[in-house]
């Protein structure tokens, strides 16, 4: 224990400065024709670990290898380590640097250990390479200190690698990297293939190890990035597309790609199901590299590569400045006569996001929806769609914003059959020819889990059950393929199995097309599964708003707590059998 403390103090004291240790400028790496890194600019200061995240093949490992001068491709640009350009250093200088000043914990731990050497000897070997670092007589003690500090059991010190568990191998590798007390530690997927308990201890260990030095953590495990790093850089097709404080970036990502990464990462506290990023990496040369997979791309995204820009704390490479706020309500007030129904309601709904509006009957949920749709006139406030103030709603507005009404039966003209009713939005917007419209009607009916045969198309509302009418209303709202869907209790009349299918369809649309959902419900259990953020409304005022996971786990307002308690009381998991 004593040795461990000494060891750490030793490390900390030696290296802390505010000067950047590592500066990467315009780093490009090509493997033949294929360019893996396409101009990376990064800076690393001591004690402020940087996480590099991204999908496999984004160039994360290549970046780590390049810093060690180990990349096998054609490398250009500048990697300045303590004011020395690594790319220009002669090989012997580079060798002095490797392991001694810059150490890397490699991704494939099975290959990184020598199978015929005992662990203790391998750690000692790494130290002996840089003889000048320690006098020989202290060597044995030093190696032991390091092994203690990585919490490797004493009985495994003399074991061969194949006798070790994954966790122990990882500890051995960390010991090898740490033995020369490097200034810069590069950790490539340090917890891959580990079980959660081992991961937790390794992370604790790594936290301790990187204290007081510079570190780069290359990982696709976002929780590792969140726990170990101060800064995070998101790498996509060899470019940094977002960079910022880890906490901020991982909680409020701005780039659609980062948001997709976070959404596809299984977070313990999140209620919403996993959502991915549509398509796959294509390595196109023109325009923004993420454009083919982006749901909010515009023409400029196809033509020009965006530059990484922003304030120093948060940089982003996106022509649209990241995920755009699709709908913004600013201080909306609405009243019916002298009754104030909405008072100073403000909310923001981003592209591809679900905002759940939660509250009891009469709290103003539907009125807010109808105000946004222009069916109720607001007394004050402002509504913005894609950043532009919405005045009188015109066809163009309704083409982008659609609503599923609360009372489906009443929202369908009793004199119209299904084909006419669902096709009506298309007819009004004069989209396509009659036959195209009918095709679209069949498509959306299918999406809403309804039959699309002739008999059903010819049936009238009074032939339908409540659930069928609701699905017709859903199909109709989807017919125009809106960007924003206001869903007012959209599944209140549906049985759970159909509800699940429809919710999943909507979330799929969100993933693939970037549909934004304003989900109005009094069912918190459902809203939790659908929404990214939640707004709790009471008596026409929003009393609490924030990330759904936070509101569910840490409600601040007593009203939210009351709603949650009631919802939890209905949980089947909490039911107890009476003896």
């Amino acid at each position, binding site marked *: 224990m004593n040795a461990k403390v000494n060891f750490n103090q030793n490390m900390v004291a030696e290296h802390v400065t505010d000067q950047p240790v590592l500066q990467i400028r315009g780093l490009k790496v090509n493997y033949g024709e294929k360019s893996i890194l396409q101009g990376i600019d990064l800076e690393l200061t001591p004690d402020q670990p940087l996480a590099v995240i991204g999908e496999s093949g984004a160039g994360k490992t290549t970046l780590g290898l390049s810093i060690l001068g180990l990349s096998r491709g054609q490398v250009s640009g500048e990697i300045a380590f303590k004011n020395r350009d690594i790319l220009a250093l002669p090989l012997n200088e580079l060798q002095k640097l490797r392991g001694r000043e810059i150490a890397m914990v490699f991704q494939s731990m099975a290959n990184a250990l020598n199978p015929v050497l005992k662990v203790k000897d391998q750690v000692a070997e790494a130290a002996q390479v840089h003889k000048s670092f320690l006098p020989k007589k202290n060597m044995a003690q030093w190696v032991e200190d390091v092994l203690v500090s990585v919490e490797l059991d004493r009985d495994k010190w003399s074991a061969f690698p194949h006798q070790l568990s994954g966790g122990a191998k990882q500890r051995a590798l960390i010991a090898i990297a740490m033995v020369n007390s490097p200034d810069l530690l590069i950790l490539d997927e340090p917890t891959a293939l580990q079980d959660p308990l081992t991961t937790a201890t390794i992370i604790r260990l790594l936290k301790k190890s990187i204290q007081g030095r510079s570190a780069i953590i290359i990982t696709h495990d976002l929780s590792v990035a969140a726990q170990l790093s101060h800064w995070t850089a998101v790498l996509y097709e060899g470019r940094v597309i977002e960079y910022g404080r880890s906490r901020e970036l991982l909680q409020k990502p701005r780039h659609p790609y980062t948001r997709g990464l976070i959404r596809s990462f299984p977070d313990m506290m999140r209620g919403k199901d996993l959502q991915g990023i549509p398509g796959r990496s294509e390595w196109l040369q023109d325009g923004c590299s993420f454009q083919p997979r982006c749901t909010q791309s515009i023409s400029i995204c196809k033509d020009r590569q965006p530059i990484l820009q922003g304030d120093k704390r948060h940089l982003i490479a996106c022509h649209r400045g990241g995920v755009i706020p699709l709908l913004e309500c600013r201080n909306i007030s609405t009243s019916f006569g002298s009754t104030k129904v909405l008072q100073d309601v403000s909310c923001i709904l981003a592209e591809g996001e679900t905002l759940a509006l939660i509250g009891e009957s009469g709290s103003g949920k539907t009125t807010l929806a*109808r105000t946004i*749709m*222009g*069916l109720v006139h607001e007394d004050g406030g402002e509504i913005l769609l894609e950043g532009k103030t919405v005045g009188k*709603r*015109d*066809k*163009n*507005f*309704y*083409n982008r*914003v*659609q*609503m599923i*009404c609360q*009372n489906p039966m*009443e*929202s*369908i*003209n*009793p*004199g*119209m059959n299904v084909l006419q009713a669902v096709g*009506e*939005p298309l007819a*009004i*917007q004069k989209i396509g020819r009659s036959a195209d419209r009918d095709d679209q009607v069949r498509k959306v009916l299918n999406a809403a889990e309804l039959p699309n045969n002739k008999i059903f198309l010819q049936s*009238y*509302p*009074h032939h339908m059950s409540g659930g069928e009418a609701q699905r017709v*209303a859903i199909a*109709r709202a989807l017919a*125009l393929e809106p960007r924003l869907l206001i869903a007012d209790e959209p599944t209140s009349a549906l049985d759970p199995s159909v509800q699940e299918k429809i919710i999943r369809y909507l979330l799929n649309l969100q993933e693939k097309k970037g549909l934004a959902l304003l989900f109005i419900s009094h069912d918190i259990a459902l809203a939790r599964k659908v929404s990214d953020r939640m707004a709790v409304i009471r008596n026409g005022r929003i009393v609490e708003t924030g990330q759904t996971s936070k509101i569910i786990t840490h409600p601040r307002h007593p009203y939210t707590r009351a709603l949650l308690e009631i919802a939890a009381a209905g949980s089947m998991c909490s039911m107890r059998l009476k003896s």
Partner: protein
Amino acid sequence: MHDNYKTLLKNNGMGRAGIGLILLVLLPALAAPLLSPYLPGEYSGSIFAPPSGSYWLGTNDVGQDIWTRLLYGARTSLLIGGGVALLATLTALVVGGSAALCGGLYDQVVMRFVDALLVLPAVLIAILASAYLVPGISLLIILLASLIWPQAARIFRARILSLKEEGYISAARTFGASETYLMVRHILPLLGPILSAVIVQHGRRAIFMEAGLSFLGVSDPTLISWGSMLQHALRYTYLDVWKWWMLPTGLLLSMTITGLALLGFALETISDPRLLPAGNR
């Protein structure tokens, strides 16, 4: 709910009786030239001839065939009834509908104007105007239509205002529908039953008013009309002619008006399900 109005009308006793009575007048009027060899203005025989094989209801004071004049009189009545009904209903629909849809100041101004028209005594004005203008058929239609539309304008406005609040109207608005589209595609079809009821009632009032004006002798004297026939017949009550001159005319007029009234009631009942007897809902 989506009701089948035809079936409902068929199942309604008053409606069936009304349609029967109207057909009883309408079909002979249409087939007039086939049912009579004479023309209504033709002096076809001796005066005051009693009913016979060649003059089914005899002749009048100038020797015209009364049966022929009855048939052609039905044409006049029905033409005026139909014309006024259409014109008045259309006016009412345009005025009431636009007031309901546009709302605001326009609604206020127009409806106050309608209120002003409503308090005017229609019959009195009709008499005065006719006395001055001595109207022919088309002028008479315009005159009567302009007097009887205001009431219906109120009805239409009220109905459209309530329809406007229906969920499917707001739904159509959220697809970007214009006011014209809403009117043509949603409101008019649903206005159907009440529209037909109003048309029938307008027709009934118009026929009655025309007969009244003619009876008072303030319309065009060349108009072949049941009203003027009644008036002429009344001059000769000391003779036996009233039996086949006045009675059939009065009867036919009553039949037409009763038929239209019955049909009107039936249509009103159907358009407002609250008026249906419990069993028929």
